């Protein structure tokens, strides 16, 4: 287990370095990086001033040295300053992240609390109307473009029936504001989750020990609860952490449509304003989230399923 943990940590580190390096190189390939760091008002700057900024930011150094400098600063928690408003990137991320977490968690709850039960029912009642409903929900959720889903939701519930708010208004904020964004964020993960649970349950239902239990005359309810679900839900449970990681950076579209003041929206604004330090900080932040959560998922897998022994 210890050896596995070390190996796994080493892989995480490789992923972290690799992923940030890819994004970092992109920024250097695209154009002269000085244009990314000199703020928009900087167009009138003289070449001497630009050189000074270059020196200050270390852009005159070789490519690899620049990456190491950037990574070193990031390790110390210094992600640079936003070009818009000159605020530290860390602060920008910090103050927006809470809103994104709220939305990701409600979406995740929807995906789990709806997706898993429907998946189980769909598998257990295979071939019945329940199964068709479940499969249709899965097919729908995986195919519907979430931005369109959001807009149709706004059209029906905000414009026509006026029962739900169409965006985040700051004042008079209530639980109602969560309804549509949550559904938009959660639907596709819910569908994916449903499918996974369904095939996992079907696979276990087809296994020898379940057949034996049935042959012994064990009641259907007992077979399902004690034998099938216990084994079939291992995978969905462990995957749930990865799902949350995916949702944290998957709220982007919902935040854009519902004017939700989260990290995704901040990133979009940064992209529009060519605020490169913020973009880079955001990418790094999401990479770390993914890597940590996938590590947790792997460990959880070993804890939940005693048959898994990493060596």
């Amino acid at each position, binding site marked *: 287990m210890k050896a596995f943990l070390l190996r796994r940590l080493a892989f995480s580190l490789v992923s972290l370095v690799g992923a940030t390096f890819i994004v970092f190189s992109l920024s250097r390939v695209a154009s002269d990086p000085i244009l990314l760091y000199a703020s928009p008002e900087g167009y009138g700057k003289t070449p001497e001033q630009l050189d000074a900024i270059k020196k200050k930011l270390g852009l005159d150094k070789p490519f690899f040295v620049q990456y190491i400098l950037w990574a070193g600063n990031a390790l110390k928690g210094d992600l640079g300053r936003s070009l818009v408003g000159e605020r530290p990137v860390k602060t920008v991320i910090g103050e927006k992240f809470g809103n994104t977490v709220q939305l990701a968690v409600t979406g995740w709850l929807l995906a789990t609390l709806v997706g898993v039960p429907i998946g189980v029912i769909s598998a257990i009642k295979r071939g019945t109307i329940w199964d068709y409903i479940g499969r249709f929900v899965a097919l729908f959720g995986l195919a519907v473009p979430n931005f*369109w889903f959001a807009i149709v939701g706004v059209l029906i519930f905000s414009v026509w029936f006026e029962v739900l708010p169409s965006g985040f208004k700051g004042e008079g904020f209530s639980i109602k504001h969560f309804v549509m964004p949550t559904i938009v964020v959660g639907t596709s993960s819910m569908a994916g989750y449903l499918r996974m649970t369904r095939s996992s349950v079907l696979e276990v239902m087809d296994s020898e020990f379940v057949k034996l239990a049935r042959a012994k005359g064990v009641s259907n309810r007992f077979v399902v609860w004690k034998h099938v679900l216990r084994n079939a839900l291992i995978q969905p449970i462990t995957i749930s952490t990865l799902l949350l990681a995916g949702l944290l950076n998957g709220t982007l579209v919902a935040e854009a449509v519902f004017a939700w003041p989260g990290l995704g929206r901040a990133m979009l604004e940064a992209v*529009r304003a060519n605020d490169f330090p913020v973009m880079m900080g955001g990418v790094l932040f999401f990479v770390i989230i993914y890597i940590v959560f996938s590590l947790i998922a792997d460990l959880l897998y070993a804890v939940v399923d005693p048959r898994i022994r990493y060596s």
Partner: protein
Amino acid sequence: MNSAQQETLPADRILEDNQTRAWWGAVYTFFRRWPVFPAFVLVTLVFCAVFAYQIAPYDPDVQSLRDRNEPPAWFSDGSTKYLLGSDHVGRDILSRVIHGSRISLAVAGVSLVSGLVVGVVLGLLAGWYGGKTDEIITRLVDIWHALPFLLVALVVVSLFGGSLIVLMVVLAMVSWVGFVRTVRAEVFVVKNQDYVMVSKICGASTYHIFIRHLIPGVMHAILVVATLAVGGLILTEATLSFLGAGIPAPTPSWGLMVSEGRDYLTDAWWSSFWPGLAIFLTVMSLNFIGDWLRDYFDPKLRQLV
């Protein structure tokens, strides 16, 4: 009461009833067996993409400010001039949706094929050589998975500017990963088959084994992954266009159309509804056919999925 009625039915009536049922049964079985509806959607789509200039009633970019936000034809105040209505600058939505299929298919097609080539080659190498090669390629895939794709795509578009080529490259950067895993796993199975062993013993070159045995052996898996990936690519292209990181306006891209219509939701919901519906139907059909193909090639999975 029901059974009493059945008893009193004349014999020929029962026969007729059975025949109708058999006829319906055959249709039902046919529809269950073959993905008729999804295939129809996709054929229509490809037809629209190829013959867009011939079948679209109007030029998709021509504006007519007098006919802004005209409702679809079946509305009381709609006219047959604009079957699906017109948008905020009076462009015909039907024509734009038809032309939009070209963009969707072109972007998804090109990025799929380039991703496929890269992914399949890496998957073959990883599966066949194993060891260090496999390790490096697997790590690379892991690194790729850690990237927050949508955000990276936005960054790339903001760095390089939005254009057809950039969009295709960005999407190819997503699509290759799926192929590596599947092809690698399949190669592990195929390479231990007797016929590959025998071929090797007989002195066949690695090139020969790749072309003659491995690639045909993993073809069905590639086809399934490809069909399932196209749907995802179309969805991603639409999302990027919606977020303003796709092909610049006025090119009729479905995602962009949804985004443009958004500001006129209260007056003209149709201008963002139809393109979105087109995306939805296309992706749903592709996913359906992907599932169907997987079942077709691997009947063992049929009950599981």
